[in-house]
C-alpha cells in the first residue's frame, strides 16, 4: 500500500482548486477500507474495518467517521472553509489516514468568503466549476450533506431513485468534449447475409400476378371499403382485341427508352450503365440532386445557355453570324431548336410531345413554318436531320419562328422564312417523324444537342411514344395538301380579341399551345412554342419573336394561349423572354 503523503500546499484563504489527479487519494481510501475493487457485495460494518493505528474509542469513532464519509462519496456536499467561502461539489474522497482533507469534484464556489457582508451576496459572480478541488484539513470547517443514505434502507432505495432521476442526454453520453477526433467514416457494406437486392424482382411483379388482393384483405380484416380505381391514377388501358398489340407496342417503347444512350449520370446508373470511369465523380455528383453544371458531359448545358443567348442576340440584332452558325452547326442546332420550344405540329394532337427536347424537330418546324402542304411523309428522320444541318448552316433561320396562324388558313409568311423547300420538307418530314416512331434513336447526333428542354437523348424518342396513349400512329399530315408557297405579301395576321379557346391554367412562363383540332393541311405553326399542357413549368419557354424582319413587319401572336404581351415591331429591340434552362429529365408522358 502506498503510504505516500498527499501534500496539501497552503494557499490563499479562499481555498483552491487543483487540477490534480486524485486517484491516489481515492485509491488509498479504498485500500484503507480494505475493500477490493472486486468486492461487489456489501461490506462489513464499520466496526470491522481496520483503520489506521487508532484504537479503542477513537478507532470506533474513526471508523464511524470513515464510514460516513464513505457514504458521502458521489453525493453533492457543501463545504465551508475557514475563510467563510462555501464550495459545493460532489464528494469524491477524503484523506482518511490523516486529517481528513477532502476532495471535491465539479466544485463551485457559491459564497466567497473574501467579500464581506452585503457585497458578498449581491456581487458574487459565478466562476467556472473546477473539476477537482482539494480542500486541506486546515481550511476545512464543515461539510454539509443532505439526504444522505446512511443505512441499508437508504441504500436500497437510492439506486432506483438515481436511475429514475437521471436523464441521459446525448451530449452526456457521447462526452463529446472528451473526444476531439472525428471518426473516420466508412462506407456501409452489407452483411454477408443480405442478398443482393433481395426480392426486388419479386416486388415489382405485376400486381395482377400476385395471389393477394390487398383491398380484399383490408376489407376482410377491417371492413374498409376501398374506392380505389386504378384508372384514376394512370392512363386507362384499353383492354380488348387490341390489347396484345398495344402491349407489344408499349414494351417496344419501353425498351427503346431504356436502351437509349444517356449522358445523364443518374439515368445511367439506373439503367446499369457505367458512364463514368473517371474517378473524379464523387458520391455527391452521383447521388445528389443538386445540379451543377459540370464536367464534360454537362458542359453541354452551359454551352446551351451561351448558345441560347447568342441565338437571342442573333435574332435581336440580325443575323450576322452566318458564318458562325455555319461553322458551329452541331452546336447551333440545339440552341436554335431549343429556342423554339416547339409544340409539335399542330396537326398532331401531340402537344405534349415534342416538348421535350426535340431540338431538331423543333428547329425544323421553325424553319419550315408552315402549313406546308407538301409533306413528304416518307422521308426518314436522318434525312431530315441532315437536311436540317445543311440548311441550318445555310440559313440563319434556325432562329426564325414565323408565327402561324392557326385560324387563318393563309400561309402566314413571316418576315424571314427560311424558306426553301428544304424547310418545308423538313417540316413535313418532321411531322411524319412526329407521327411515326423514330426508329433510329438519333442519340448520336443528339448528344450534341443537349437541349435545354431535352432529356439527353430525348430526341430519339418517338413522338408517339412520348404520348401517353398508344393510339395509332396515323400520320396527321395530309398527303393531299397543297404545296406551300411562300407569299411574302400576304397580309399579316391580327388575332381577334377573344381567344379561340379558353386559356388553360399554365404556370407562369409557359405557353399553352393548343393543338388545332383538325389536322389542317395548311398548318400554321405558332411562333410561340409552348409547352404542352401536361408539363407546365417544366420546360423552359423561349419565346422568340421574330426579329429583324426582312419584309413587312408583322405581329405575331399566339392566338390561343397566354401572351407575353409582346408585339413585334420591326426594328425595335425585342424583349426576349428567356427562361432559365431546366434540365428536363424524363419523358413527356
Amino acid at each position, binding site marked *: 500500500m502506498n503510504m505516500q503523503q498527499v501534500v496539501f500546499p497552503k494557499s490563499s484563504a479562499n481555498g483552491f482548486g487543483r487540477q490534480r489527479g486524485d486517484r491516489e487519494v481515492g485509491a488509498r481510501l*479504498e485500500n484503507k*477500507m480494505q*475493500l477490493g475493487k472486486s468486492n*461487489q*457485495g456489501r*461490506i462489513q*460494518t*464499520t466496526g470491522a474495518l481496520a483503520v489506521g493505528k*487508532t484504537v479503542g474509542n*477513537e478507532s470506533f*469513532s*474513526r471508523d*464511524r*467517521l470513515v*464510514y*460516513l464519509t*464513505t*457514504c458521502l*462519496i*458521489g*453525493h*453533492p456536499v457543501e463545504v*465551508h472553509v475557514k475563510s*467563510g467561502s462555501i464550495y459545493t*461539489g460532489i464528494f*469524491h474522497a477524503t484523506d482518511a489516514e*490523516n*486529517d*481528513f482533507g477532502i476532495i471535491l*469534484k*465539479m466544485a*463551485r464556489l457559491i459564497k466567497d468568503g473574501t467579500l464581506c457582508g452585503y457585497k458578498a451576496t*449581491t*456581487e*458574487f*459572480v*459565478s466562476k*467556472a*466549476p473546477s473539476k477537482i478541488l482539494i480542500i486541506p484539513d486546515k481550511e476545512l*470547517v*464543515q*461539510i*454539509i*450533506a*443532505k*439526504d*444522505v443514505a*446512511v*443505512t*441499508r*434502507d*437508504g441504500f*436500497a*432505495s*437510492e*439506486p432506483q431513485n*438515481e436511475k429514475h432521476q*437521471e436523464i441521459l*442526454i446525448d*451530449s452526456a453520453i457521447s462526452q463529446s468534449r472528451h473526444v476531439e477526433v472525428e471518426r473516420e467514416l466508412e462506407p456501409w457494406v452489407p452483411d454477408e447475409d443480405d442478398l443482393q437486392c433481395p426480392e426486388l424482382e419479386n416486388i415489382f411483379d405485376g400486381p395482377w400476378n400476385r395471389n393477394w388482393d390487398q383491398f380484399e384483405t383490408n376489407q376482410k380484416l377491417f371492413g374498409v371499403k376501398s374506392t380505389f380505381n386504378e384508372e384514376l391514377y394512370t392512363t386507362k388501358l384499353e383492354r380488348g382485341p387490341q390489347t396484345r398489340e398495344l402491349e407489344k407496342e408499349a414494351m417496344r417503347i419501353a425498351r427503346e427508352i431504356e436502351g437509349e444512350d444517356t449522358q445523364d449520370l443518374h439515368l445511367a446508373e439506373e439503367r446499369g450503365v457505367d458512364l463514368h470511369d473517371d474517378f473524379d465523380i464523387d458520391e455527391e455528383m452521383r447521388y445528389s440532386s443538386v445540379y451543377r453544371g459540370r464536367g464534360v458531359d454537362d458542359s453541354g448545358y452551359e454551352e446551351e445557355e451561351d448558345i441560347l443567348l447568342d441565338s437571342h442576340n442573333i435574332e435581336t440584332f440580325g443575323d450576322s453570324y452566318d458564318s458562325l452558325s455555319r461553322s458551329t452547326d452541331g452546336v447551333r442546332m440545339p440552341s436554335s431548336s431549343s429556342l423554339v420550344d416547339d409544340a409539335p405540329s399542330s396537326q398532331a394532337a401531340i402537344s405534349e410531345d415534342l416538348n421535350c427536347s426535340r431540338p431538331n424537330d423543333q428547329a425544323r418546324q421553325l424553319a419550315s413554318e408552315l402549313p406546308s402542304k407538301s409533306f413528304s411523309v416518307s422521308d426518314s428522320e436522318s434525312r431530315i436531320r441532315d437536311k436540317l444541318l445543311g440548311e441550318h448552316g445555310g440559313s440563319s433561320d434556325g432562329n426564325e419562328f414565323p408565327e402561324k396562324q392557326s385560324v387563318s388558313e393563309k400561309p402566314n409568311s413571316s418576315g424571314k422564312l427560311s424558306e426553301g423547300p428544304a424547310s418545308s420538307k423538313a417540316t413535313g418530314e418532321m411531322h411524319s417523324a412526329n407521327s411515326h416512331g423514330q426508329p433510329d434513336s438519333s442519340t448520336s447526333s443528339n448528344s450534341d444537342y443537349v437541349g435545354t428542354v431535352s432529356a439527353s437523348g430525348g430526341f430519339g424518342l418517338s413522338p408517339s411514344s412520348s404520348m401517353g396513349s398508344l393510339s395509332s400512329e396515323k400520320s396527321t399530315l395530309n398527303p393531299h395538301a397543297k404545296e406551300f408557297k411562300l407569299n411574302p405579301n400576304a397580309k399579316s395576321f391580327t388575332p381577334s380579341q377573344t381567344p379561340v379557346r379558353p386559356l388553360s391554367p399554365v404556370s407562369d412562363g409557359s405557353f399553352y399551345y393548343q393543338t388545332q383540332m383538325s389536322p389542317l393541311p395548311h398548318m400554321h405553326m405558332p411562333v410561340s412554342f409552348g409547352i404542352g399542357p401536361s408539363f407546365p413549368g417544366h420546360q423552359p419557354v423561349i419565346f422568340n419573336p421574330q426579329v429583324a424582319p426582312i419584309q413587312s413587319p408583322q405581329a405575331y401572336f399566339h392566338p390561343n394561349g397566354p401572351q407575353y404581351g409582346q408585339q413585334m415591331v420591326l426594328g425595335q429591340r425585342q424583349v426576349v423572354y428567356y427562361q432559365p434552362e431546366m434540365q428536363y429529365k424524363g419523358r413527356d408522358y
Partner: protein
Amino acid sequence: MEGEEFAVGCFLSIKTTLGDEFEGQIISFDRLSNILVLQEGLESGPRRNIRLLKANYIKEFSLLRQDEDPLDVKKCFLDLTSLQAREDSAIRQAEADSERFGVGVTSEAQTLFDALSKTESCVAAF
C-alpha cells in the same frame, strides 16, 4: 474544544465561529481529526442530513438531550460499486448542468436564467 468527550446520541445546539447555528445529534466524533459528525433533523427515514464539523470551530454548544445512537450499526453497509456509479452519474449530471451555469454572472442573473430555463425543456447555454 479539546478534551471533551462527545457522547454519541446527544442532541446539541451548536454555534460555530463562522456564525452558523444548528442542532444535531452526534453520530460520531473523531478526536484525531477533530471532526464531529452530526445528524441534523429528525431521523425520519433512511436519509439524513449529515454535517461534519471541525470541532475547533465550535464557538459554543449546549446539550439538549441525550438519545440513543442514531446509527444502527447493524444496518450499515457500503456498496462501493454503487457508490462509484453514483459518483459517475453525479459527475455527468454536473457536467451537463455546468453548461447551464453562466460564468461571470451574478447570482441574480443565474436565478433568472434558471427560472426562465424552466419554461423550455432544452435551453442552450451560450
